[in-house]
Each structure stands twice: as C-alpha cells, then as structure tokens.
C-alpha cells in the first residue's frame, strides 16, 4: 500500500504541473506583440469583417494604398461579421488587438467603453466636415474613437413597372403608403415588404418611422412611437405586408422584391449590386414616408468605423492612425463609396457624389440627417433595441395593441 501511494504522487504532480503550465504557455504565445516602440514600423495588422467579394477586394485595395502612403505593409485579417465582436473581446483580454480595427458602428460604444481604443484626437486626426450622425456614432463620452469613410442607411425601394401599371406614385406620407400598399397587393404580390424579425435588424428597419415621427429610443411608450408601431401593425393586419415579415431578414426582403412578390421594400444600398444583376427589374428609391407632409425623414445610420486600439506601442499606433486618416481622406471616401454603393460620410462631398451617382442620391440626401443608433444611449443601446423589437413582434402578432406592447417592453 505504501509503495502504491508513493508511486502515484509523482505522476499526480506531473499532471498538476501540466495543468498549470499549459494555460500559461498558451497565454505566453499571445503577448509577443509588445515590441519596443523605438523600432521602425514596417508592418501593421488590420482586422475587419469584409470577408466577401467584392467588398473584400475594395477594402483591401484601399488599405494597401493607404499602407504604402504611410510606408508600411498591411497584414490584414478578415473574419465573418458575426464572429468579429467575440474575436475582439478575446483579443482585448489577451492584449493582442490589431493595430487598426474595424467595428460596426453600433458596437463601437461597447468596445470604447472597455478602454481598448485610443481617442483619435491623440493622433490629431481631423474630424471636420463629417456628418453629425457619423461623428456621434464614433463618439464615446465626448471623445471620437472611430471614423467611417463611407456610411449607409435605409430607404424605400419601389418597382417602377408594377407602380406604373397600377397607376401609383411613390408614397411620401403614411396615408399614401398605406393606400399604395393596399392597391399594390393582389394575388401573390404584396404591396410592401419590410423586416420585423426579433433581432436588431427588425429594430433598425423600424427606426425611420419611429424617429421621423419624433419617437425616442430612451422612452418608447410615447404617443409618437405608438403611432409608428400602429402603422407597421396596420400594414401587416391589412395584408399589405406579409406576416412573414416577422421572420424575414433584409436579404429575404430583397429576394421577395426581386421575385416581384413585393412592389416596394424597405432596404439599403448594399442590395443594389444584387438588384442590378436582374436587368429587367426597374426600380427607384425614395425616402421612407413620414406621417405628415413637412416632417423630416430621419433614417438610422449604418456603416463601419475604423479605430486605433490601445496596443501599447506608440510608433505602431501612430502608423495605424495614419492609415485610418488616409481611409477617411476625401479622395478615398469618394472612391470607396462609388464602388461599394455606400455614401461618403463628409457632408462636403455629398452634392458632388449625388450628381455623379444619381442612383444613390436619395441615400446621400438621407445621410445628412441620419441618426446614429447609439448616439443617445451609448452602451445602453443593445438593451433598448431588444425592447423595441420585442414590442414590434408583440404588436404585429396581435398579442397586444401597439400601446400596450410598447408599455410592456419599456417596463421589462
């Protein structure tokens, strides 16, 4: 018995040593980036989620060009959109963030709140001429952490042929929208398609009607928001919008529109390449209607911001900042916006861009007044956005009136 005990102790110690040692060894691999800051910087790392063509190449080209200008080569990593945030959080805990990091604009608050990002003012990057919404999307606690070279938003697409045939003009007010949608609904075809699914996408698509009517995300059980939700509910209840909207994504909405099963749709300019692949499809784009003529159509701001993480290496950070500034130069904004069907984020470029790209004119106009989702709430946005889509779903399924659905959700 004694000998058995003695013999077991040593392997046990071995096992314990392995257990303790392995994670240490693993984490040690991660901390190799802390090079001395006096070294000349020849390469910087970049991470973004443009992992599909053609955006992957467009962004890659712009990065390479900006890298050359700053005298560094770019080591780029593209990850799928859904895994970006978890990757960023992992990297921030192991202190292995890239030198330049792209973030979807509503996520900037969460990451800036961690202290992982450097304020762009540290590098004297100019924030002049950017649209107000773009700056507020990149701002956390009064400091700008991220800038978006190009942005996007959503508007109302309509099928010209279907509307012409029915003698309907693109609607500008809610009443017109309801009337037009009803008139355009026949057989297999719905008047309008939008997305009201239980994700942030559903919230995003609802924001234009809510904001344009004076609704506010801080407190959603108000008359203004209720009216907006009533509009969405009426459209589904009357059958002008398929109840499938409760489960559709924006891509599904686009598919319905392209198949001629929806005469109009709420969607963004990133769908334009797909729409243009079908030459028989003649479409136009107008602002999302407002309740009363005279109200301003306020759209939510989409797009990705570029940031400089706190990597602890000043020289590399300086180079990274040069790249971010370069991506946001007038020339690059115009070029990237054009190829990617997005809008330059500087208002000074708007008129020139709209005249050169008439297809994007409506979106360009909207960006001037577009609001950032996180502008008011900062890191509280995800929680509130959840309440909004919960209320939308509750009202649209008929589980509660819009007023009650909003009240319930606000109290949650």
């Amino acid at each position: 018995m004694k000998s058995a005990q003695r013999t077991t102790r040593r392997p046990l110690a071995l096992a314990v040593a392995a257990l303790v040692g392995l994670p240490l060894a693993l984490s040690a691999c991660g901390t190799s980036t802390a090079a001395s800051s006096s070294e000349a910087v020849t390469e910087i790392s970049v991470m973004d989620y443009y992992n599909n063509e053609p955006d992957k190449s467009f962004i890659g080209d712009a990065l390479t060009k900006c890298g050359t200008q700053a005298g560094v080569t770019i080591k780029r990593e593209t990850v799928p959109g859904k895994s970006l945030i978890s990757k960023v959080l992992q990297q921030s805990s192991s202190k292995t963030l890239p030198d330049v990091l792209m973030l979807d604009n509503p996520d900037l608050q969460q990451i800036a709140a961690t202290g992982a990002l450097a304020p762009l003012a540290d590098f004297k990057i100019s924030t002049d001429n950017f649209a107000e919404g773009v700056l507020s999307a990149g701002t956390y606690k009064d400091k700008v952490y991220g800038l978006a070279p190009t942005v996007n938003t959503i508007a109302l697409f309509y099928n010209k042929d279907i509307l012409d045939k029915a003698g309907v003009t693109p609607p500008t007010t809610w009443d017109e929208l309801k009337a037009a949608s009803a008139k355009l609904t026949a057989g297999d075809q719905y008047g309008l398609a939008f997305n009201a699914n239980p994700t942030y996408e559903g919230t995003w698509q609802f924001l234009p009607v809510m904001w344009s009517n004076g609704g506010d995300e801080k407190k959603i059980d108000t008359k203004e928001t209720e009216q907006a939700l009533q509009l969405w509910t009426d459209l589904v209840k009357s059958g002008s919008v398929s109840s499938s909207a409760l489960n559709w994504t924006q891509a599904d909405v686009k598919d319905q529109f392209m198949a001629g099963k929806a005469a109009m749709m709420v969607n963004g300019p990133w769908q334009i390449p797909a729409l243009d692949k079908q030459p028989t499809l003649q479409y136009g784009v107008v602002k999302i209607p407002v309740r009363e003529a005279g109200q301003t159509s306020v759209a939510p701001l989409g797009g990705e911001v570029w940031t400089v993480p706190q990597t602890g290496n000043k020289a590399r950070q300086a180079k990274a900042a040069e790249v971010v500034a370069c991506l946001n130069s007038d020339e690059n904004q115009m070029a990237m916006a054009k190829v990617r069907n997005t809008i330059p984020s500087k208002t000074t470029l708007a008129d020139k861009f709209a005249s050169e790209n008439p297809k994007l004119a409506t979106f360009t106009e909207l960006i001037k007044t577009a609001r950032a989702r996180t502008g008011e709430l900062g890191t509280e946005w995800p929680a509130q956005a959840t309440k909004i889509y919960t209320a939308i779903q509750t009202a649209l399924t008929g589980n509660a009136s819009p007023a009650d659905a909003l009240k319930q959700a606000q109290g949650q």
Partner: protein
Amino acid sequence: MSLTTDLSQTAARSTGKAKAKSGRPAGSPTEAQKPRRRTRQRRERIFQWLFLVPAVVYMALFFGYPVVKNVVMSFQDYTTATFFTGEAPWVGLANYVTVLSSSLFSTSLLNTALFTIGSILGQFVIGLALAIFFQRKFPLNGILRSLLLLPWLLPLIVSSAVWRWILDKDSGALNRFLGDLGIVDTGVPWLTSTSLALIAVVGVNIWIGIPFNLTILYGGLQEIPDELYEAGSLDGATGWKAFRHITWPMLRPVVSVVLVLGVVYTLKVLDIILGLTNGGPANSTQTIATQSYDLSFHEFKFGEGAALGNVLVIISLVFAVLYLRASRRAVDE
C-alpha cells in the same frame, strides 16, 4: 469518479497477482529479484497514470475551466470592459435575481419544457417505430436505413435554413404541398404565428433527432435473442404481445439511456431555434438556451447570461445523474 475506482481495482488486482506469484513455494524468487519486481510494478503504475494525464488535462481545460468560469462569472458584473481591464466586481446573487425575476423567464422555462418534451416524445416514438420496422428483412433495407441518417449528418445550420424555406408562409414548399392537396387555402404561418411557431420548431427538431433514436434503438433490438421470440410465439405471444412482453422489457435499459441523453441534448438546442425563428415571434419560441445566448452575445450582459446558463446546467445535471444511473444499470444488466 468511476475512473479512480477502476484504477484502484486494477491496482488491487495486480498486487494480488504479484502476491500469488511470490507466495509460490517451488522456485521461489531470490532476494535480489524482489526489488526489481517492485520497480517494475512502480513503473507500470506510473504508466497507468501517464495514460490518464491527457484525458485529465483535456477535461480540466475544456470542461472544468469553462464550467468553473461560468459559475464565477454569474456572480460578477461581467461586461465588455472586463475583457480589457480584467475587472469584474462581485455582485452576489444579483444576476440570478435579475434573470429569474424577468418576465421572460417563465415564458422561456415553459417553452424549454414544451420543446424538450415534445421533441423527445416525437423522436422516440418515431425512432422506435422505424427501428422495429427495419428489423424485418426486406430489399433495400440497408440503403433506406442509411438514408434515414441524413438529417443527422447535415450541419444544423443547413437543416434550419432549408426548413425555414420549407415552412415559409407564402412560398414555402409545405404550404404549396398542402395547398395542392386542398387541405389548406391560404398559407399557414408556421413560423410567424405565436401559436404555431413552437410546434413547427419542435417538428423540425424531431426530424433531426429521429436518426439518433433509430440508430441506438435498432442496436438495442439487435441484442434481443431470436430464441425469445421463438419461445414466445410458441406461447402465443406475437405482434403487440411480443412487443409488450419481450421487446419492451429487454429494450428498457437502452430506452432509458436514449431518453435521458435526448433530454440533455434537447435542453441546450440553440442553432435550430436561432436559425428558424430567432426566438420569435414575440418570444413564442424563446428557450432558456436562446435567452442566455441573447443576453451574453447580443446584449453583452455576460453575468446574466452566465447565470441563466447555470440554471440550464443544473436542470441538465439532474438528467445527467439519471443517465449515469441508467447507464450503470444497463451495464449491470
């Protein structure tokens, strides 16, 4: 637990053997041979432990660490900032209070129960029926059986995408089919009606779970000796009677294993629900698993997500203990 008992048994057995050897009177070993034998024994035992090390390290790293971390996390205010700063203030039971008192919890709990019971019931009954059916000998038996494994082989994300398309209200294949048969007039809102969505999701999960049940139960059926049926038929036990008095009792150990494993698998189903409905419409397919995922990865409330995750772990644990008992009994029998 079982590992250590196994080891001590083998250890005891080997020492016993050694004793028996040394106790042999004829040609007894010299004094010089004894220490050599002891070092050999010791080396053997070291080897036994060394073989265990990879498993222990693996378990500790990939099961022990996350579970402990999750428990710790659930008592902390764990936010995105924690990842960078490492600071997560202790908040005691606050996360549990928030999660358990939220109006959504009772909905999720009920949905989890309905989803699990419905799925298990469907999977098991259909799986058993198919297993019995495939016991007969008929042409193409093998090919058909392997075709039935397909749902198991498909990635869940693919299955849910295909089913989302099939179940679509306006252009889904199911509604087309039912419409052509004249069973329904207008599209049935499988995934967008609060009263149908859970049923539809359970249906898809049953489809996915049938192969597992079929395979295990078919294996169990093969184990039942034919002689029993022959003897039974002499006593007049055929058909349903044979099933009740021979098949079912003989299959019971396998059944309990299948059911308990099925429950544990089903409780944590995430991909299928997220792929089909995202927990909607109006939370009608929200389960504890999807809610926990939402809290952690969409709302970035990692502490609350972890707390809810632990609630699920505890529920699963109950069934895991049942499973261990059932499997031990199955081995004994």
